[in-house]
């Protein structure tokens, strides 16, 4: 599927390509595929992917923007072939014990349902990784059930633990590091979403999917130990 794209200069040495302003699986897959096609161009310094945009940073200031943009257009138009990268569904253990899910009971009260209902809704679907931003290893996930949409807290917490699983508005995600944060916390994952010492610091890539698996508190600590000892292997399935 081909989209109508706009190409803009962003500063002196970057080009911003924009897709229609929607959050959609087709758009993000098209962005991921395009980004892989331009990867080999030597003069590129870095790329940033978001919901409906791709920013291409060049090594040097762009002096011939018409030429560069027409090259990019050609690559986009000509590409009937799809560069497919392997995409995975990752099984992410999450402990929804109320000692970790400190906002679970409040949400259940507001939503007039049980804590078990919230856990069921959060784990019965899988989520698409759109892109990674905000912090190293923070996954922007799409696909949260309508009934779990909850506004962010009016007063953000000064400290949210690394691994905390939260809901903010229509989004859900895992805090990869200790940080301040305004999302409602419903659980905690023992996994490390950004491990600088791992060969792949961030195991999930844009286009992958995430399935949260509820584990009890004993399994949580067991997995946490295995993660620290680098013995834990995250279960994944090729999509």
């Amino acid at each position, binding site marked *: 599927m081909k989209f109508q794209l706009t190409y803009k200069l*962003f500063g002196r040495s970057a080009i911003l390509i924009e897709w229609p302003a929607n959050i959609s699986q087709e758009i993000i897959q098209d962005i991921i595929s395009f980004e892989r096609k331009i990867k080999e161009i030597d003069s590129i*310094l870095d790329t*940033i992917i978001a*919901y409906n*945009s791709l920013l291409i940073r060049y090594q040097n200031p762009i002096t011939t923007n018409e030429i560069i943009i027409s090259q990019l257009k050609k690559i986009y138009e000509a590409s009937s072939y799809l560069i497919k990268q392997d995409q995975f569904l990752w099984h992410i253990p999450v402990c929804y014990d109320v000692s970790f899910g400190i906002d679970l009971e409040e949400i259940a009260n507001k939503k007039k349902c049980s804590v078990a209902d919230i856990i069921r809704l959060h784990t019965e679907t899988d989520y698409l990784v759109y892109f990674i*931003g905000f912090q*190293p*290893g923070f996954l922007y996930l799409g696909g949260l059930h309508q009934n779990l949409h909850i506004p962010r807290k009016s007063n953000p917490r000064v400290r949210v633990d690394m691994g905390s699983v939260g809901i903010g508005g229509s989004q859900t995600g895992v805090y990869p590091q200790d940080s301040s944060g305004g999302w409602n916390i419903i659980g905690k994952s023992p996994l490390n979403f950004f491990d*600088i010492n791992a060969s792949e610091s961030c195991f999930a890539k844009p286009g992958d999917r995430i399935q949260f698996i509820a584990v009890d508190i004993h399994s949580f600590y067991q997995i946490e130990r295995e993660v620290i000892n680098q013995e834990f292997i995250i279960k994944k399935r090729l999509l």
Partner: protein
Amino acid sequence: MIEVLHPGIYCSIQDQGRFGYAKMGVPQAGYADSYAAKMANALLKNHEKDALIEITFGQGKFKFKSDTYICLTGGDFSPKLNGKLIKMQSVYPIKKDSVLSFGKRVYGARVYLSVQGGIQTEKVYGSRSYFEGITQQKLVKGAMLPILPIQKDTDNSFSRVRASEKHFTTIYLPCLKGPEFSKLNNEQQRKLLTPFSISDHNNRVGYRLKESLENNISSILTSPVLPGTVQLTPSGKCIILMQDCQVTGGYPRILQLSEIAIARISQKITGDKIQFILEDHS
């Protein structure tokens, strides 16, 4: 080695920054004042990419555990070597156990301390620039920073230059239109190009400006941002993103500062005036 006797308000190791990992959410980081940092390396005949120490508000204290050469650029905070005032933009030979300290602020906000060959802390993803969760070496009291043995056989005729006064005094920040600039109406565009002042929310992540702009343009889908991107928040405040900013953001991006503009603003402090100057592409 260099021992951090006191880190002052904030200091960190910085080089040109980290590129190629933004897709994992890894910020660029790197020296805020590229003009001063590159000068500090050039005067020592270092590589442009060598790491140096960025000292915010020049309050730190450092002890050299071996002989080397140093050079200070950027803000002038009355630097002292073993208690004796030394000059900015000048190369000094350093004897083992010498102590570098600072005094009163003369101008600027960030000092760059370069040493011969650059600071040798661990490179992570191609850069030594400090970022929480990426690099380990925090510049806390007692931290030991590896440096190279002194190179004496090279020509020692180090030059001394004058830093451009304009770099520290000018209020003008050259910039280009950001992706959402055209969403601003004529009055907003006019107001945006009048002087603003810097609020007390200013650091390596961003500089927030005091005055508000009437804002009726909506948020955007979370999109890429860069150091130097000027965001307009729903309350009408402008935020100038700096080197430690996130890779994506949801506020309209109304301007993009040039590299020299980022360098200039990094030497400004709370209350200082700035004015955006719109340049043409090409």
